[in-house]
């Protein structure tokens, strides 16, 4: 199956800092999503981004499908950004409709 590696595994930043989270995957995909899991365990979809660049407020993401990686940028971090960020990939129509998740990046934003 498709392998997903996320880095860094842990990240501690001060409020206001910027960060870049990386996701590498081992095979071609046509489905890539970024999620934030808050301290209560709820998974929130941030981006559906199998290719290209998207922005939503302080967050943006870029996927370079040909090179098999995606980046999530968080600018001007706030304490509410703390939690675990997951990258998940799939290949719908190709026997991989279910998403394969990376192990996540655990982000802590300190006030």
């Amino acid at each position, binding site marked *: 199956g498709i392998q997903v590696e996320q880095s860094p595994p842990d990240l501690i930043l001060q409020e206001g800092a910027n960060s870049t989270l990386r996701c590498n995957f081992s095979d071609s995909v*046509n*489905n890539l*999503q970024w*999620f934030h899991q808050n301290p209560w*365990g*709820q*998974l*929130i*979809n941030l981006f*559906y981004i199998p290719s290209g660049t998207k922005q939503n407020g302080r967050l943006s993401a870029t996927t370079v499908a040909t090179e098999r990686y995606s980046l999530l940028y968080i600018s001007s971090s706030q304490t509410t950004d703390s939690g675990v960020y*997951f990258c*998940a990939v*799939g290949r*719908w*129509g190709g*026997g991989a*409709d*279910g*998403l*394969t*998740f990376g*192990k*996540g990046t655990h982000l802590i934003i300190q006030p």
Partner: protein
Amino acid sequence: GAGVSQSPSNKVTEKGKDVELRCDPISGHTALYWYRQSLGQGLEFLIYFQGNSAPDKSGLPSDRFSAERTGGSVSTLTIQRTQQEDSAVYLCASSLDRGKTQYFGPGTRLLVL
């Protein structure tokens, strides 16, 4: 207009008992997924339903696990003869169509004693 809902929120059971977990997807979503999250294995795909097609069961860990989706809406995940290693958070997600944005429910936390 509500999101994905799951019940129960928490379930404690004894080893060897059967459990049923329920998922109500977002209205109109044709695709429904089950995942589980555990400390040791991370987030794992279990099963996928799309409309009235046969489900993709490729992620089910053993034949003790089964799921059904009635009327293209509500889904039930059943675990027979539960084992301690089944303890995990079971998450349900739905999407408007296959390959689209997935929206997750709050999960059911299962503890097998």
